[in-house]
């Protein structure tokens, strides 16, 4: 099939679509790199990550920015999300202490209240310290990074798997469709926290393990959504037109059907990142999540929880505030996105 023929049939937003896809892949790849490499300090990968996220956001809001920023809550949520994302990505540079470098810790500084200084006055613990003498603020920044990267990566991967399965089911139809959707129904009939809990019980702790568990928990949700979209899209004229042109099935599916099934997923996936963060932190709180060496916000809260009843609230209180801030701002941005991108809901 020659290029000029298809160029006519492609919608005008195609260039942006390619840019967005590239940005999405960039985000996924850099996250994968940052998650697998111990310490996660690769600066170029982190810059790619931030740039990719910004391009994705810009692509999403292109031509709709005015509608998106129609109230104060949109500004507040976007600003706080941006700040938290930058803090998480550049945690190593920003945080006053590397909380997992034992040379920088002093056990004598354990459980200091917020605002106290270390013994020679060279450092102020603005949010206090935990029982090991770790600066809570630094711990939060590192924890934020773990929480965010695990959740975003798991969401992207689950989305990719769900899209493939959903489109395949819709395209194949018949028995394949029925079997795949029964599996999806089966999995969705159990609450995600329960499934994730069992998986983590079987796998044991670990960053890679919790990512896998979070992917397994979520893919079915996307598969079902995409299948619905793909079924209704497949009946539209442009697919008939592509068939009429004699394009191979592979090309129709990946070049025409797939790009049109993704937009409805964007809003879902935004909110889903927030849900994943909550799920991950709950698992870590229960002690079956991330390893102790790379605590997420949930594990930080869990660590400080034992001291809360004795009034040493800061160890779990401030990580909790950070968790709330990130989840609430993602949810608020997602809420605005839904209103902006879904024309049916506008009044």
């Amino acid at each position, binding site marked *: 099939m020659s290029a000029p023929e298809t160029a006519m049939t492609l919608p005008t937003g195609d260039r942006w679509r390619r840019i967005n896809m590239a940005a999405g892949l960039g985000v996924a790849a850099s996250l994968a790199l940052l998650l697998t490499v111990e310490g996660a300090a690769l600066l170029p990968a982190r810059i790619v990550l931030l740039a990719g996220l910004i391009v994705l956001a810009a692509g999403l809001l292109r031509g709709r920015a005015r509608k998106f920023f129609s109230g104060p809550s949109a500004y507040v949520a976007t600003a706080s999300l941006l700040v938290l994302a930058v803090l998480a990505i550049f945690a190593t540079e920003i945080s006053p202490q590397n909380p997992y470098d034992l040379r920088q810790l002093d056990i004598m500084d354990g459980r200091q209240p917020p605002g106290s200084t270390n013994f020679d006055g060279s450092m102020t613990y603005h949010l206090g310290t935990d029982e090991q003498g770790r600066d809570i603020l630094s711990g939060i920044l590192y924890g934020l990074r773990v929480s965010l990267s695990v959740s975003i990566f798991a969401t992207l991967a689950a989305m990719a798997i769900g899209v493939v399965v959903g489109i395949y089911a819709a395209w194949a139809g018949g028995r394949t469709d029925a079997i795949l959707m029964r599996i999806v129904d089966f999995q969705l*009939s159990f609450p995600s*926290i329960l499934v994730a809990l069992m998986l983590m019980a079987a796998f044991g702790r670990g960053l890679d393990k919790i990512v896998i568990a979070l992917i397994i928990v979520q893919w079915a949700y996307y598969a079902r959504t995409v299948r619905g979209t793909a079924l209704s899209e497949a009946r539209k004229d442009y697919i008939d037109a592509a068939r009429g042109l004699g394009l191979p099935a592979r090309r129709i599916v990946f070049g025409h059907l797939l790009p049109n099934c993704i937009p409805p997923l964007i809003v879902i996936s935004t909110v889903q990142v927030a849900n994943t963060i909550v799920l991950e932190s*709950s698992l870590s709180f*229960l002690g079956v999540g991330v390893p102790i060496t790379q605590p997420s916000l949930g594990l930080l809260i869990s660590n400080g929880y034992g001291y809360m009843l004795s009034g040493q609230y800061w160890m779990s209180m401030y990580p909790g505030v950070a968790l*709330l801030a990130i989840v609430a701002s993602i949810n608020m941005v997602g809420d605005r996105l839904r209103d902006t991108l879904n024309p049916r809901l506008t009044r």
Partner: protein
Amino acid sequence: MLVFLLRRLAQSVFVMAAMMVVVFFGVYMIGNPVDILISPDATPAEIDETMARFGFDQPVYVQFLKFVGNALQGDLGRSFVHGEPAVQLIISYMPATLELAALGLIFSVLIGVPLGVYAGYKADRWQGRAIMTGSIFGFSLPNFWVGMLLILIFAVELQWLPSTGRGDTVEVLGMRLSIFTADGLQHMLLPALTLALYKASLVTRLARAGTQEALVQDYVKFARAKGLSETRILFVHVLKNIMIPIITVLGLELGSMIAFAVVTETVFAWPGMGKLLIDSILTLDRPVIVSYLMLTVIIFIIINFAVDVIYTLLDPRVRVKGGAA
């Protein structure tokens, strides 16, 4: 209706069978329970003897067939830790979880419905917007964090309510329940509220959407033309029409509430099934984990079934369609 019920029943049996396979092999992957059961300085002979006693030395498929055979007779093994039959153990922990989930459900309706109806009524005003923003926070707040905050405020600072345990219980219909004693109810208040908050924001959103849709309908115009008060229109006429989706969703959510109780129970040290599950996972108590999962599946199947039946009873349109099919 009968065909529908039979089909659902067949589906449920299939789901049970599939779950049995998944659960058995999933749990089989979890560590070696013998490490927990015997002391580290046991001799190889002792280890072999223990393995043989629990049947761990046999091939996986033999263990599986034995498991299925016993499960069909309602026997899912004995807890390694407690020494009791696992099913009985879980059932003895079950009332605590069920009463917590029930109270949580009641709270979520009591909080969510009025807020949602009001938010739908004032959808474009600041009140409506404020409630919706608030509901985002309800969604965002992780369960354990809400629980912690409540403990910090009401148990540590104000010292009004207890933070852990069940308090006094009474025997009702053979179950030990806290909900009917003043002390037990005090202990339940914080966990139930924690459990309810997420569902309450869900209910708020559903009620708001339903109210917004209902307010433009003819029957509301007619009721207004009759000169009924707005309160009566909202909480009698509109409410009746929006309850169906809310009940459906809540019914489905009852199951997830029992699952989420795992977190809440851990925070409040509430001795229910969820706490038992976490403890069992940490001690590799396989029979208890398996039994918990199987019982949860049964509960879920029953809930889904009940929701379908209630749904057809509440909405005659579904019944007509179901009868024709």
